């Protein structure tokens, strides 16, 4: 049995950390969630020298200061799980800034192996890094890598095991200058005497307290004597600030960077300064973020993305549809031949296979969508899109980064909701998730096509377009309303790195797509299955009734709810049942109407013409647009937030959908459109 080691990978976003992780662990990885939150946690393993090394990929962060969810996760992991070692992956062509995180890791007391990644870029720019000196001064081993060419990866595996076996404690220390150091020393002695029940390095704790780290302050407050300790700290900090003449936070930052600047100066030849001319990335940015070209270019790329998703995805969707049809057939025949009871065969075929199938047919679309997102992200374009849309998004009380999830929602709300993970502030995440279902996803299109085709053949396009617009307008209103109710005082300013453009790596993009797609399947799967079984049950019972007929439970429920929809102009049980089934997946609405009216696609149009008026058809479309997120979306909203926000998302959309449908119908009738 191999000996076990647990290590973590830390590094800035865009330092090539994910590539290193993929190279280190190959296919031995899996994705889960960090405890309590929904940020993806990637774990993998490799073996080296008789050791089994478990690798945890920490979220890419700029620091351990716990401002964003990602930073908090990284820090908590290091503090609580105590990995044997941390591999700090840094972009060697951007040494100083990247070392800032490394310095924080070392101050925290972590045992570090420094991975200078992207060494090819460094060489290309004619910079030489004296790695021996760097290693000596920092007191950690340094490995050079070019991860996307797998260069140096073996060396990391070797050095990691060597270091863990050596087991020497790190002795890294930044000299904050005599004034600050004197206070640090004094406070360390003070805290040591208190014998606090924490296992942090005292020096780190003192520095964090002086910096005013919100989370650490909070933690201290909960300890016995915490209040007294904090008072002493605050006194010392205030005295020090008075003495220094400016705020302590800035002072600590400047000392830290001062140290790193000296370090980088000593260990590199040829200083990289501002003199370097505009590189390719800046030239591309001149076009991409241009005032006039930026937005049209973005829209063009989005259009291409949707083309990819629906033209390539379409035939695959049909294939899966046929596949599930075939499975259903085979299962039904098989079950009958072995003499299974009628209800059981119906549960398996109509309920589970049919229901799950109706959701799974969208898998190709979802995977392609994730493929497109991965491409846009890995190339560096996604950050620019957010940048370009920032100003427009302020009308929603959100900023540019929220735009991507909303756009994705037009394809499917699920990836849209999942994409909110990139947003730092909770406010932005929740608001963007709540309004996401108002982006009319592709599954609602069949409903519009059916009704608009039947009633508004001449202006079909315009009518459908009006629904998309209505969704967006409502999203703006709802976002503003919820913001003023739940997040009155929170602002999340836009600070976003624009990484250099890169050619995406095929392997990286595919891994990314697979992880996200399969995560959707795993997590949404359970709830979808439960929902499907529930609907089957309601359609089949009491025993002996025709599936989904007026006498079935769902038919009776439909009749019960139908009067509620009278003010919206469609108060008959078939419409209510269709909407009920629509919760499963919006496109099911059309299929359900077909079943209930015993009509095929062509016949359905004439049946609808008899039962609806143009006005009630429109209000029915509006209802379908708004009334509730589909069951898979509800599952994902729950997964990304909690029950409170999930109930709100379901509740507000039901009320809003009904309200808007009724208003449209009643006002329309007032103006006598009802006669049309």
């Amino acid at each position, binding site marked *: 049995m191999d000996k076990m080691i647990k290590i973590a990978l830390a590094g800035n976003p865009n330092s090539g950390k994910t590539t290193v992780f993929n190279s280190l662990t190959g296919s031995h990885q899996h994705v889960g969630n960090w405890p309590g939150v929904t940020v993806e946690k990637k774990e993998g393993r490799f073996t080296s020298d008789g050791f089994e090394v478990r690798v945890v990929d920490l979220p890419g962060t700029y*620091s351990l200061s716990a401002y964003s969810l990602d930073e908090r996760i990284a820090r908590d992991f290091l503090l609580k799980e105590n990995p044997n070692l941390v591999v700090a992956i840094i972009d060697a*062509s951007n040494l100083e800034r990247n070392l800032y995180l490394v310095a924080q890791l070392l101050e925290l007391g972590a045992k570090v192996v420094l991975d200078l990644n992207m060494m090819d870029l460094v060489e290309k720019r004619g910079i030489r890094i004296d790695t021996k000196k760097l290693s000596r001064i920092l007191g950690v081993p340094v490995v050079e890598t070019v991860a996307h060419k797998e260069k140096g990866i073996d060396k990391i595996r070797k050095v990691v095991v060597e270091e863990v076996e050596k087991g020497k404690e790190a002795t890294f220390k930044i000299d904050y200058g005599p004034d600050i150091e004197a206070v640090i020393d004094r406070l360390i002695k003070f805290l040591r005497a208190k014998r606090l029940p924490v296992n942090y390095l005292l020096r780190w704790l003192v520095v964090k307290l002086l910096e005013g780290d919100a989370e650490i302050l909070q933690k201290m407050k909960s300890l016995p004597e915490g209040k007294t300790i904090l008072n002493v700290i605050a006194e010392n900090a205030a005295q020090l600030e008075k003495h220094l003449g400016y705020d302590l936070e800035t002072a600590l*930052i400047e000392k830290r960077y001062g140290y790193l600047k000296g370090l980088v100066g000593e260990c590199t030849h040829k200083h990289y*300064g*501002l003199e370097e001319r505009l590189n390719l990335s800046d030239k591309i*940015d001149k076009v991409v*973020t241009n005032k006039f070209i930026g937005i049209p270019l973005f829209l063009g790329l989005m259009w291409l993305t949707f083309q990819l998703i629906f033209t390539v995805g379409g035939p695959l969707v049909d294939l899966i549809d046929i596949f599930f049809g075939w499975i259903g057939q085979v299962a039904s025949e098989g079950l009958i031949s072995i003499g299974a009871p009628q209800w059981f065969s119906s549960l398996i075929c109509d309920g589970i296979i049919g229901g799950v199938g109706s959701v799974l047919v969208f898998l190709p679309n979802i995977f392609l969508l994730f493929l497109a997102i991965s491409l846009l992200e890995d190339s560096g374009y996604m*950050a620019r899109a957010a940048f370009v849309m920032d100003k427009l998004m302020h009308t929603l009380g959100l900023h540019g980064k929220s735009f991507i999830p909303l756009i994705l929602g037009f394809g499917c709300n699920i990836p849209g909701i999942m994409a909110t993970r990139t947003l730092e502030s909770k406010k932005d995440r929740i608001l963007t998730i709540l309004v996401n279902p108002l982006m009319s996803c592709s599954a609602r299109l069949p409903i519009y096509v059916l009704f608009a085709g039947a009633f508004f053949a001449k202006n079909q396009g315009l009518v459908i377009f009006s629904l998309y617009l209505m969704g967006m307008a409502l999203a703006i209103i709802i976002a503003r309303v919820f913001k003023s109710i739940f997040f009155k005082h929170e602002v999340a300013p836009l600070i976003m790195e624009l990484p250099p453009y890169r050619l995406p790596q095929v392997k990286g993009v595919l891994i990314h797509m697979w992880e996200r797609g399969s995560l959707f399947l795993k997590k949404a799967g359970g709830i979808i299955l439960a929902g499907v079984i529930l609907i089957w049950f309601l359609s089949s019972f009491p025993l002996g009734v025709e599936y989904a007929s007026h006498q079935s439970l769902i038919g009776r429920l439909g009749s019960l709810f139908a009067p509620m929809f009278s003010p919206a102009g469609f108060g008959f049980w078939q419409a209510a049942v269709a909407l009920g089934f629509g919760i499963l997946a919006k496109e099911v609405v059309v299929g359900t109407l077909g079943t209930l009216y015993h009509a095929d696609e062509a016949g359905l149009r004439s049946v609808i013409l008899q039962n609806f008026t143009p006005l009630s058809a429109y209000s029915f479309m509006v209802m379908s647009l708004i009334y509730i997120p589909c069951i898979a979306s509800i599952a994902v909203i729950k997964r990304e937030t909690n029950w409170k926000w999930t109930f709100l998302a379901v509740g507000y959309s039901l009320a809003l959908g009904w309200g808007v449908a009724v208003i449209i119908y009643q006002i329309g009738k007032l103006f006598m459109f009802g006669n049309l």
Partner: protein
Amino acid sequence: MIPLSMVNPGQKVQIVQIRGGRGLISRLANMGFYPGVIIEVVSNRNGPLIIARDKIRLGLGYGMAHRIFVRLLN
């Protein structure tokens, strides 16, 4: 000393002071931007700005740029 938001594209400036809450100072420092650093304004078009330090490019909301005070260089 003028706010960064008023600097024209192409201009090099030195950060003198960041008048923001604790979060802002720290977040900017984590990304490599702190008092003393020399930066260049890449784009400023009455919306978010792009600023550059060596090879780092940062998109920055206008409101925030208004709270970063800089000194014009040559």
